[in-house]
């Protein structure tokens, strides 16, 4: 099994272990193996959305129906959901776990992601969004802990996946 597939399978197992059923996503090259793995896994319903804000809406509604969910997106996608997250998740105190890619960090040579390297983490801090960077396979078990934390505190949180983990 390739490292990419091993990581994707480990993430799927983490999500299943804490009762996640719905995965709403918009792709990023770095997470396509994860998305394909979740899509093929009968433990999940994977919904490809038209834009990242729709994923935030879907997950909030699923939560209000008692169903576990996560949103997955690229760093650029996360930059577009500040409105939805602060309006829905902060106003109503609805938890959601959002996976993003840590684009623009050291090792990502895509020039188009320079802005994410500069601003993603400062923006997470500016909106008081708890986040955890995961860049080693042995840290993947943190996912279930963070998911349960969001549900216990009725707060959203972000897990940022690195190129070293996903590459």
């Amino acid at each position, binding site marked *: 099994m390739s490292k990419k597939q091993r990581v994707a399978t480990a993430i799927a197992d983490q999500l299943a272990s804490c009762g996640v059923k719905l995965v709403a996503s918009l792709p990023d090259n770095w997470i396509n193996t994860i998305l394909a793995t979740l899509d093929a896994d009968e433990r999940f319903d994977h919904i490809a959305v038209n834009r990242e804000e729709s994923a935030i809406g879907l997950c909030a509604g699923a939560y209000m129906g008692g169903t576990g969910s996560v949103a997955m997106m690229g760093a650029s996608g996360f930059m577009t959901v500040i409105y939805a997250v602060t309006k*829905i998740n902060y106003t109503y105190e609805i938890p959601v776990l959002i996976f993003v890619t840590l684009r623009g960090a050291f090792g990502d040579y895509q020039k188009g992601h320079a802005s994410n390297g500069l601003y993603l983490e400062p923006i997470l801090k500016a909106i008081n969004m708890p986040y955890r960077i995961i860049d080693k396979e042995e840290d993947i078990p943190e996912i279930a802990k963070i998911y349960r934390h969001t549900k216990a505190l009725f707060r959203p949180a972000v897990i940022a996946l690195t190129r070293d983990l996903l590459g």
Partner: protein
Amino acid sequence: MKYLECFKFLASKRRDELVVTSAGNSNQAWWAATHDTRSSFYLGASMSLSTMFASGLAFACPAVKVWAFMGDGALSMNTGMLFVERQMDLPNLTHFLVSNGCYGGTGNADLPSRNLENDYVAIATAMGLKRVYSFDSLEALEAGFDAAVSGDKPGHTFVVLEVERFSEEDEKGLGLSPMDGPEMKYRFGRRVEELTGADVFGYRV
């Protein structure tokens, strides 16, 4: 069709449906028609996401019918949501598109198309939705509502309601649900727990 008369009729047809309203006029009109504080989620703090929220809810609660209201201003902001609704094709979800040609939540500002007629039935049909209905008068809505909405349906339902904009005089008599976000969450979530047996919050009181 008068906006409030339309919503009063819808309220008279509502049984155990969970309702999600959008920011703006549908929020005001549903509150005026029902004063519901348990089975309606007034998603005022969000533009263009009421039907995505409702889709997640309907997915989670397949035995419960869910109605979602959205203005055509919201549809203008996020038309691609219809692709997601088509993909999910939830038979327990009805998307009511309230068409009044303006951003009702922001002082009735015109939509980008201004006075051009927007054919939302054509848009929804072209985007692949199958069960698409449109009503431009209260009489037509009364006559066609059951065929479009009532009972069990084979897939997602999209209903265009052509209504008049609120006048300044109309708006003077309208309020908003007084609940803040967390209170609404708990009231609605507890109602979901009653209806479905689901565990929304992880504890019961």
